[in-house]
């Protein structure tokens, strides 16, 4: 069924189709309409789930952790400072290997206060052990939310579905709502392997020692480092698993095929722009303009940011002359976060392309097509001594 709705509603409809059993979320701009829609769906009995109201984001995720530990499919959503407020539980959910799904409606982080979009909130949580997926439009929001539940449950690792505040959350776009019965087949009822059971009481995520320890029955149990190594390894397996799940989704619904990253005019391009989220869509127009002028440039939209798809990145970029990373977040005091990751991935390549970095649109600062055009063109025509620093576009000087 086709619908014209906001990105937040697209997310809520995805959550509804996923038949979640528990929703706990605290409203925060620009995520608020998503939680409002969910509470409306639950109140109206359209979604048979428990909506647990909480006093904070920390509690929202804590409730979801409890629900998932008891075997329920659970969902939460947040933005910016809300995400940071729940950060302790964000790390916990990954270490506890709970298959939660959370939408992060991307917004800049205070201080100073901003309610506008950038990617600093979710990027700051990239090392927590969650799977992070960045989507480009409303169709991808609803499709990815559904796929995210299957992915989270397949590898028992929580998934963040990140989409841009306002650019996607509050704008209206047409999208297709997948058929409910088909979604039921694609995403059957959730059976968690390690559910709390009153008949068989146990402690979950108990204190670990630096060493592996014998348990009550004398069986050696993994220590902290073993458990964390296992999370790291199994995050890596999430890449092929996500590809398989996406292929199954494509077969059922006819959409998908590029879950890790999608490319536009990258075939045979000399220069490739790398970006995430709705910004990647905007760059397509600039790429078209530059190709008309004879500059062979494409844009690669990275969807899967964690686990970082190193091999796929190398394959996509190693034959280019130059890579231009344009992003809305950075590791303060260093450089763009994605820029650093891309450079590190390309380090072993024999013929290494140059990599340039532009920081843009922080706190919703207007992103002008002309600025994008000038920056990309400057990089494509750069001389050898183009300084390797992160360049900030659109500063008020």
């Amino acid at each position, binding site marked *: 069924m086709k619908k014209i709705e906001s990105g937040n509603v697209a997310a809520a409809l995805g959550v509804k189709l996923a038949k979640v059993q528990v929703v706990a979320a605290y409203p925060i701009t620009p995520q608020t309409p998503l939680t409002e829609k969910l509470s409306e769906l639950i109140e109206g009995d359209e979604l048979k789930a428990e909506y647990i109201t909480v006093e904070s984001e920390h509690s929202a995720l804590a409730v979801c952790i409890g629900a998932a530990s008891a075997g329920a499919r659970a969902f939460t959503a947040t933005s910016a400072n809300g995400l940071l407020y729940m950060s302790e539980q964000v790390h916990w959910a990954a*270490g*506890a*290997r709970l298959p939660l799904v959370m939408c992060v409606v991307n917004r800049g982080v205070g201080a100073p206060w901003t309610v506008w979009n950038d990617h600093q909130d979710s990027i700051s949580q990239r090392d927590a052990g969650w799977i992070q997926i960045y989507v480009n439009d409303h169709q991808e929001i609803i499709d990815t939310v559904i796929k995210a539940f*299957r992915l989270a*449950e*397949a*590898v*028992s690792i929580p998934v963040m579905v990140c989409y841009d505040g306002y650019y996607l959350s509050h704008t209206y776009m047409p999208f297709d709502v997948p058929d409910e019965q088909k979604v039921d087949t694609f995403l*059957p009822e959730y*059976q968690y*392997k*390690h559910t709390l059971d009153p008949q068989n*009481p*146990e*402690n*979950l*995520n*108990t*204190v*670990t*020692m630096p060493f592996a*320890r*014998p*348990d*009550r*029955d004398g069986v050696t*149990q*993994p220590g*902290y480092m*073993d*458990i964390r190594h*296992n*999370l790291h390894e*199994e995050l890596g*397996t999430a890449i092929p*698993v996500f590809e*398989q*799940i996406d292929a199954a989704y494509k077969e059922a619904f006819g959409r998908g095929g590029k879950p890790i990253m999608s490319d536009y005019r990258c075939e045979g391009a000399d220069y490739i722009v790398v970006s995430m989220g709705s910004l990647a869509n905007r760059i397509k127009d600039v790429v078209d303009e530059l190709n008309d002028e004879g500059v062979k440039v494409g844009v690669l939209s990275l969807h899967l940011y964690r686990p970082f798809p190193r091999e796929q990145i190398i394959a996509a970029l190693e034959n280019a002359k130059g890579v231009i990373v344009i992003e809305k977040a950075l590791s303060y005091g260093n450089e763009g976060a994605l820029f650093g990751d891309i450079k590190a991935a390309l380090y072993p390549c024999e013929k290494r392309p140059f990599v340039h970095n532009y920081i843009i649109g922080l706190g919703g600062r207007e992103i002008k097509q002309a600025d994008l055009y000038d920056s990309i063109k400057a990089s494509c025509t750069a001389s050898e001594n183009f300084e390797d620093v992160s360049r900030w576009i659109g500063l008020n000087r």
Partner: protein
Amino acid sequence: MDEFKCEIKTSNSKSGPGDAGRTGSWRVERPVIDLSKCTPAKRQKDSCYLCWLYCPDGVISKELEPKIDLEYCKGCGICAQECPTGAIKMVEETSLIEEERKNDEKN
């Protein structure tokens, strides 16, 4: 559902002694029960057992003469605090070890 070879390592445990390893080595003070003050021991009848109930490590037995598994007793002193008859005293491990050594030498 998708079958993938995930091990999903976490730290889960059943409650009981040995949950967190040999916690007996953490002990600075040792609980010592004076059976002449302990209600079930005195009456030779099941009763009280508050020490058994409160011990966070589950290392006190529910017997007429309650016993403490020192392999795992971490010396928190909760049993001594909860015992209504004051039958449990916390005694410095060092003094007990010295006493034990002297006894060993005698034998």
